[in-house]
């Protein structure tokens, strides 16, 4: 014990004498631990989604695939009657069912007195909602809260927003200006790791008072996210086996052959589901693996760094250690003391690392851009795990320096042969190669992800996304007065054009059933739009014409590009008789030349549509998906209200402020009871690539950390090596070597090692990034400049780390250099 005490006095003195290295060592490991912890938090966050539900093992979502020849949709939602019918017909398999519904609307208007909000997290749910899921009711009775029509449960933050500090229970909210909803429960804020994220859950039975009731028996429209709790005795396969008969029995005859139902485990939704109409943005298991790998790599770099710097520090105390050894401390004791010292240093570094994480944790978001859950300290298991991992890392990284120091023998020291005892030149170089290979890999990932993101955000989509403002109008009075809304807007000089649409172009689309002679009835990706859609988005017409309004002329005389007047005048009413399709649709139908498509039948139940125009392919959804056959259908008066959910307004260049003001003015004039909810199309579309954005951000940070750590390590190891080689350097100086030659030689030797790591990593990076890019149907190509830039910068930064130490050799005369060498 006495010896141990003495050792720590000695070690502390040594640390203080080598303050710079000690600081670099602790900071290096702290930064590494902090980065590892953040990645680990992210990993935990992404992999723990939805695990708070009590019956998670038996909890499934039903999804609906409607496809023919690969065209159609795979929706996360199903028709209204599906859930209850399934539960009624298979009570031995399904214990409970709950549907969630939000009109497929981006927001729903709720008011209380003068407080009016467009709520984006508002759902109607069956009364079994609280029994099926693990959401906790704070006030109210779980069994009754959603049983009556006109009931709603809300979260505490929502209650505060509407009612301040007064009691929320029993208060009455107004939904869409018409329907009263009484607060019957306060539900705890949904955990952040929940794919269902809400502020309001209103009782499903409330919908019976609304026109949407008409869809309750509709087996085509599929707007309900439907969850089932299986009987513990039933297996998912048993349920799955019932689906074909069920579909046959209930779905319309023309649709049934195209429909497949699936069971999707709720625990897998966040990481594995990427369906049409997801209830919220999901994560991606591939990124979880990537971040997991990066976490391990960052920890590895830190450990190597710690090893390098500890070895460098150990070299500075060789003489003292040899003397201590001469005084009777055994090799084993020395080894043990050093390990203990490394473990203590790493524990300290872990503490500093945690403080760093606590500081940055409020700014951390997950892959979907949502805040991460709480602090590291709230994750007790993780905390213990990281502490253990950190101390183990410290011990592992302390083994080599401990061995190195313990191996010095007194005799060798006095014979001047110490330099031969450093068995580790190859080992050291290997560590450097590993460290810089990882840094290079991160660098490549950063450059590639940055370029790909840039490509995705700036790719030519085939339509204009700039200058376009989107106004959600679903459920609002604007839908009813749309012609007036449009007309008033168009009168304003800042407005270039106005159109209406069913979904946000470029973000999402619907699938609708069309009949063609070639394919019969089939569901196609499509969008119902208002007049001037083609013009507003500047979509290029290849052949045919734009939709023409009843007057027989384009609705706007200001710009009539793409319109071939009177060429196809047999279409008397485009609202009922015309569709426009894209090139991919022409190919899918086998019509050959786009001109052949003009006049072909592509009819819905509501009309007798024929193709009036073919547009060039454009990206109607994100660049994660290939362009598919697509139909643009003009809304007739009879389907306006159901289909028009957004109004797109194109504002003239340099008149954005005036244009926005005009939209607000016209909206407020026509719909004063509800505030408008406006967004720029470009901003919305950029958010489609949030995962790529997060990957780019993370890889940028990690690259900076990895390169910094590697350079700290390189700084330490170069100092160590130069110290070891002082005698040799002194000899070379004595013989007549110039200082610059020696500096050049030292720098070159290090850079050669780093160049090896670059050459090793470049092909690995190429393979990994090619693999990542394969996730995208539209992607950049991996060009040599990416690897040259990454390699070049790493070489440059490494040179900076080495040059400082290398220049130390110029400070001394040959004799001083020799005298300070071993």
């Amino acid at each position, binding site marked *: 014990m006495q010896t141990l005490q003495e050792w720590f006095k000695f070690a502390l003195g040594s640390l203080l004498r080598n303050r710079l290295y000690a600081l670099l060592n602790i900071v290096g490991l702290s930064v590494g631990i902090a980065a590892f912890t953040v990645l680990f938090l992210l990993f935990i966050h992404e992999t723990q989604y939805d695990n708070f539900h009590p019956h998670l093992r038996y909890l499934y979502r039903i999804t609906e695939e409607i496809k023919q020849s690969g065209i159609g949709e795979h929706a996360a939602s199903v028709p209204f009657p599906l859930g209850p019918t399934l539960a009624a017909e298979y009570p031995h398999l399904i214990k409970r069912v709950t549907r969630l519904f939000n009109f497929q609307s981006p927001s729903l208007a709720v008011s209380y007195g003068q407080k009016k909000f467009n709520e984006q997290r508002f759902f109607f749910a069956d009364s079994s909602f609280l029994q099926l899921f693990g959401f906790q009711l704070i006030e109210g009775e779980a069994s009754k809260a959603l049983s009556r029509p006109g009931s709603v449960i809300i979260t505490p933050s929502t209650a505060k927003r509407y009612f301040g500090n007064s009691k929320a229970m029993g208060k009455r909210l107004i939904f869409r200006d018409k329907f009263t909803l009484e607060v019957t429960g306060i539900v705890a804020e949904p955990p952040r790791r929940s794919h269902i994220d809400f502020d309001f859950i209103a009782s499903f039975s409330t919908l019976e008072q609304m026109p949407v009731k008409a869809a309750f028996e509709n087996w085509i429209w599929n707007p309900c996210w439907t969850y089932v709790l299986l009987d513990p005795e039933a297996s998912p396969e048993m349920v799955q086996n019932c689906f074909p008969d069920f579909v046959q029995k209930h779905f319309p005859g023309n649709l049934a052959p195209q429909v497949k139902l699936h069971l999707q485990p709720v625990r897998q939704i966040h990481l594995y589901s990427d369906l049409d109409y997801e209830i919220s943005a999901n994560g991606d298991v591939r990124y979880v693996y990537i971040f997991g790998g990066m976490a391990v790599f960052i920890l590895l770099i830190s450990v190597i760094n710690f090893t390098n710097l500890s070895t460098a520090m150990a070299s500075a105390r060789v003489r003292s250690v040899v003397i201590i050894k001469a005084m009777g401390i055994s090799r084993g004791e020395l080894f043990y003391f050093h390990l203990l010292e490394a473990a203590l240093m790493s524990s300290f570094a872990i503490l500093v690392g945690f403080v760093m994480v606590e500081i940055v944790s409020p700014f951390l978001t997950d892959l979907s851009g949502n805040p991460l859950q709480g602090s590291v300290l709230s994750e007790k298991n993780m905390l213990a795990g990281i502490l253990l991992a950190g101390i183990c890392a410290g011990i592992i990284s302390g083994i080599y320096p401990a061995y190195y120091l313990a191996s010095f023998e007194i005799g060798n020291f006095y014979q001047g042969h110490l330099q031969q005892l450093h068995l580790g030149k190859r080992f050291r170089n290997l560590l450097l190669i590993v460290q810089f290979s990882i840094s290079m890999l991160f660098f490549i990932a950063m450059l590639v992800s940055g370029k790909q993101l840039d490509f995705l955000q700036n790719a030519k989509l085939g339509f204009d996304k700039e200058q376009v403002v989107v106004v959600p109008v679903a459920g609002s009075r604007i839908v009813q007065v749309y012609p007036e809304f449009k007309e008033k807007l168009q009168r304003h000089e800042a407005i270039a054009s106005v159109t209406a649409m069913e979904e946000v172009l470029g973000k999402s689309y619907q699938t609708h059933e069309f009949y063609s002679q070639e394919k019969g009835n089939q569901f196609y990706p499509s969008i119902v739009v208002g007049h001037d859609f083609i013009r507003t988005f500047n979509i290029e017409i290849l052949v045919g014409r734009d939709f023409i309004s009843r007057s027989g002329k384009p609705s706007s005389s200001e710009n009539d590009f793409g319109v071939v007047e009177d060429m196809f005048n047999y279409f008397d009413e485009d609202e009922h008789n015309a569709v426009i399709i894209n090139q991919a649709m022409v190919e899918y139908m086998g019509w050959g030349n786009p001109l052949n498509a003009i006049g072909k039948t592509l009819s819905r139940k509501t009309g007798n549509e024929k193709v009036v125009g073919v547009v060039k392919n454009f990206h109607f959804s994100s660049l994660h998906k290939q362009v598919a056959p697509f139909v643009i259908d003009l809304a007739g008066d009879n389907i306006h209200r159901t289909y028009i959910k957004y109004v797109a307004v194109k504002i003239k260049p340099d008149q954005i402020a005036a244009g926005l003001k005009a939209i607000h003015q016209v909206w407020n004039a026509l719909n004063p009871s509800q505030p408008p909810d406006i967004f720029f199309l470009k901003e919305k579309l950029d958010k489609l690539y949030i995962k790529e954005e997060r990957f780019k951000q993370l890889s940028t940070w990690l690259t900076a950390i990895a390169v910094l750590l590697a350079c700290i390590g390189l700084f330490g190891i170069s100092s160590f090596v130069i110290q070891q080689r002082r*005698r*040799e350097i002194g000899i*070379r100086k*004595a*013989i007549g*070597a*110039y200082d610059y030659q020696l500096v050049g030689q030292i720098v070159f030797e290090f850079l050669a090692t780093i160049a090896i790591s670059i050459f090793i990593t470049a092909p690995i990076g190429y393979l990994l990034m090619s693999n990542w890019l394969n996730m995208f149907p539209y992607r950049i190509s991996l060009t040599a400049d990416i690897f040259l830039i990454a390699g070049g910068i790493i070489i440059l930064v490494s040179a900076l780390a080495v040059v400082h130490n290398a220049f130390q050799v110029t400070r001394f005369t*040959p*004799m001083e250099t020799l005298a300070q060498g071993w």
Partner: protein
Amino acid sequence: MMNYLLRAVNLSKVYHNGNVQTIALRQVHFALQEGEFVAITGPSGCGKSTLLHLLALMDKPTGGEIYFMHQPTSGLSDKQRAQIRRYHFGFVFQNFNLIEELTVAENIALPLIYQRLPEPERKHKVWQVMERLDVLHKANFYPMQLSGGYQQRVAIARAIVARPQILFADEPTGNLDSQRGLEVMELLSELNQQGMSIVMVTHSQQCVKFAHRAVHLFDGQIVSSVISHLR
């Protein structure tokens, strides 16, 4: 005016270690004529090696001036000093100071590499000197694989391979047995007879006998300079 190849005037060297000052040399005057073989002797710590290092431009004096070929050296840059060491001086260290990672031939070739001699010429010269010093058969050995005698031969070979004007030798026989020591001294004597000037630090009276002149140092000052009659 005498034809001095190397001359030191009022040379002094003080080492500072914190507040402690150690005077290694005090106002030393020294001169070496072309073709001369001078031995510097004296007790341990008297400043012999310090004087040798200063004369060989391997260290910088605290005061005084060193003239090489009548040119003062105090104002020279590190590069110019390295240039003189490279082209005009050779140095034999007491503990050989061979580079462990290089073979015998590579160690010997070092000065020629720094002189940027073309490889064929370099190889030829290295081969010649190895043959002369009887280390040719050890050409591919590493220093650790050699005995002390052979290591000193290699050190001498490295010092003379570029045919320097002055050879500095610091206790060249200090780590050798008497037989090996004698061989080394005979070799130095032979080099001197061929025209190479030599400055040697030694404890050994046997070695002093090989020099033309013995300079005796005591407490950092030259106390005598005796021309050898034995030679």
